[in-house]
């Protein structure tokens, strides 16, 4: 047996295989994302022994730091966001593999310094670039990386990958432009477009739930399902992101990426095997089956399918909060939507006639993300005479956050001599069933990128087709020239118009 070809000691080892030797180059190393998410995720991966045997991190940013300053920043980040009051052996060892190069992103000399650093003896030739920088500079950074010869490995065993943070464009045109720039210098398999929703355990579990159980898939279609509701509710306002959010709004910020990913996992056909391309192909099929939100021949067609709104002053999480237009950095005449509700129709054999309702917003009463599959009622209510209470339809709820799990609602007989019915819930919760901490999405996704597994990352065609669906809505809104949009009081579940949207279909939003 050729012991040298593969690592025989991994056979049967419960700790998963670790990635090949890697240099992680983080652009935006002094930024908020690196501080809050990436550095804590790296530490947790090190604790779980998931980092490569040879691993270096090269931080890149404009901030004038030394290696030691970056390492001190790393320890501060762990203190603040990983609950590590004092450096431990693991963080100390990992810190010694942290290095830093400072400079302006548009300065060619910066890339020469990066090239010199990662070519030093002992530095691996597998390089993962992480773009934790504004999307407006992605194209320029990729171009300069390419010009410096950094997107091609030095050795046959080497590799180069790039993780790109959302947003991937702001509409169809910019998304296409961005993909075109990336594809000028990189092949699609080298590009990992991160959507942290896909790193959530419950979202991944959707595939297992649907395709590793024999009992759900047969009823997962128009014959048994009445409609689907996907809700992503936040209690926070725009916080420090007003500059970005003013130009984005809820439709761009949440629907085009996160909710479309979730929707397609719910709606996709079974892939023939669990491989990145098969899963992503089936998701794309589901996306392509969604009917245009704004019919090309109907002037106000979109009004039936989309509702937008903006929060006004109200009361959330036990305190009074200002309205959106009163937030720091927000225009007092802003018509940016902080809430959006949509009605989607999928034109496929599986889903014809089954509406998918999506809603997402800021300053809603509670923070929760869930997928609710509502089944059709039984064709005949045989208990009507003895139990006049209407039968509640069966409901399957996938809790994405914060309490990850799955619940099933069904009818049961109330104890007693009378035949009375009442809905009951059967609950599965990740937190209590397995007793293990659920990994942070960034840990999962960073590790997948290190391993070169793109399953949980967005492909270029998915991104573009998602924009193709959303962009006409923005164009319709812009064309309307409205100076105000519907409002909802902070701490309420959106505007009345959102209720009307779903009620027009004979349904109603779940009370969460």
């Amino acid at each position, binding site marked *: *047996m050729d*012991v*040298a070809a593969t*690592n*025989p*000691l*991994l*056979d*049967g*080892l*419960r*700790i998963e*295989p*670790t990635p*090949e*030797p890697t240099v992680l180059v983080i652009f935006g190393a002094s930024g908020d994302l690196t501080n809050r998410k990436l550095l804590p995720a790296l530490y947790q991966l*090190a*604790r779980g*022994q998931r980092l*490569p*045997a*040879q691993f270096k991190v090269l931080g890149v940013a404009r901030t004038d730091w030394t290696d030691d300053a970056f390492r001190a920043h790393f320890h501060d980040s762990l203190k603040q966001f990983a609950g590590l009051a004092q450096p*431990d*052996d*693991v963080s*100390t*060892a990992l810190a010694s593999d942290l290095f830093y190069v400072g400079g302006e992103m548009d300065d060619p000399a910066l890339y020469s310094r990066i090239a010199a650093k990662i070519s030093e003896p002992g530095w691996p030739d597998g390089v993962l670039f992480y773009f934790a920088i504004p999307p407006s500079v992605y194209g320029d950074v990729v171009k300069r990386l390419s010009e410096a010869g950094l997107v091609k490995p030095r050795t046959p065993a080497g590799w180069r990958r790039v993780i790109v943070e959302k947003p991937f464009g702001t509409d169809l045109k910019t998304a296409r432009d961005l993909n075109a720039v990336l594809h000028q210098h990189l092949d699609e398999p080298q590009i990992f477009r991160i959507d942290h929703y896909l790193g959530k355990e419950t979202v991944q579990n959707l595939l297992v739930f649907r395709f590793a159980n024999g009992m759900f898939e047969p009823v997962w279609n128009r014959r048994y399902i009445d409609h689907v509701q996907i809700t992503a509710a936040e209690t926070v306002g725009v916080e420090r992101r007003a500059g970005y959010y003013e130009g984005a709004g809820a439709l761009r910020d949440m629907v085009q990426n996160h909710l479309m990913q979730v929707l397609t996992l719910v709606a996709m056909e079974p892939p023939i095997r669990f491989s990145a391309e098969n899963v992503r192909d089936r998701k794309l099929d589901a996306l392509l089956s969604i009917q245009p939100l704004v019919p090309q021949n109907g002037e106000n067609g979109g009004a039936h399918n989309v509702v937008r709104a903006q929060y006004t002053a109200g009361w959330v999480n036990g305190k009074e909060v200002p309205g959106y237009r009163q937030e720091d950095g927000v225009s007092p005449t802003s018509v940016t939507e902080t809430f959006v509700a949509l009605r989607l129709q999928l034109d496929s054999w599986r889903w014809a006639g089954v509406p998918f309702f999506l809603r997402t917003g800021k300053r809603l009463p509670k923070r929760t993300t869930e997928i609710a599959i509502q089944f059709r009622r039984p064709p005949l209510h045989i208990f009507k005479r003895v139990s006049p209470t209407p039968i509640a339809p069966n409901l399957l709820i996938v809790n994405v956050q914060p309490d990850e799990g799955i619940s099933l609602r069904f009818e049961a007989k109330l104890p007693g001599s009378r035949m009375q019915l009442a809905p009951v*819930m059967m*609950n*599965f*919760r990740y937190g*209590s*069933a*397995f*007793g*293990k901490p659920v990994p942070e999405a960034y840990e999962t996704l960073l590790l997948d990128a290190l391993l070169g597994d793109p399953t949980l990352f967005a492909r270029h065609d998915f991104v573009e087709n998602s924009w193709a669906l959303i962009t006409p809505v923005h164009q319709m809104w812009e064309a309307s020239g409205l100076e105000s949009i519907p409002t909802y009081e902070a701490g309420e579940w959106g505007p009345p118009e959102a209720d009307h949207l779903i009620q027009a279909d004979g349904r109603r939003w779940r009370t969460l």
Partner: protein
Amino acid sequence: MTSPDMTLLPNGREVPFADIEATLARLARDGRRRKGGPARALTATVVVVGEHDRLIDAADALAHLSEAEGVRAILISEGGETTPTARVTEHAIGIAGLAPKFLNNAVAALRLSSLPTAVWWRGGAPESLQEIAHLADRLIIDVLDPSSAWSIVDTIVEQSAVTDLRWTRLTRWRSVIAHLFDLPEVRSVPVTRLSIAGADPFAARLFAGWLRSALHWGTDVTIDLRPSGSSDQRAPLDSVELDADGHHVSIARRATRGCLRAEIAGRDASTRVVPLGEGTLTAVIGEELGVRTRDLAFERALAAALEIPAWQ
């Protein structure tokens, strides 16, 4: 006589065997009322068999686990009782002094149907071990001297996935070496000598057996096992060293820090420090219960370990 603080499940209710299920249902209902919230999903039955004293700390470990996971714990000590009473808590059942020939019947009656059953073997007659394997999806050997249990593993593995809790404790050690062997330049050089120092001779043999079976060593690789220092719960070994042409790989436990330091000396020198993990009985058995499948690497390691002489 058992002292009061050594009573198995001292907070449990004493009930006849026939009333166990009804009592569990009542306690679960009361628990839900007290704590609020819905019923939890159950995931497994864990049967612990052993002498009374060894069941006490197992009960403690499983109490923590049952709080975190949906586990039903059944603790049984062997004795001469044919009509035993049981002590029952919300998550656990304790039966003291049950006649070994009825062990099977008790487990068959009390295990959760349709969910995996793990048997945590902390002592008892080898015949009972063989019998109970029929009811177990997974058998976890956890005895100080596993010689007799190990000797019958090959007759059990077709019925039940078998492991030894030592194997779980060695996971971090194994993964550290495997990590270093990810480097092609390390695994391409033939090993000439393996030295293992530790307090548990069976753990040392198992580890050596694993390397021998996984790396297909012949008799040309010298294996040197020697007792050293004191082991704590988290680490059955103190150090492992591999000599190869141009490389020296060493892994040593950092006694005070709960970490392993792995080092490659020579060409391509490299160092890694990794945590040993929590290492408590709760954590180790919790990790083991997360495994549901047959562990062929363990079986091969054990077969090889049985051919390696223990230190004197």
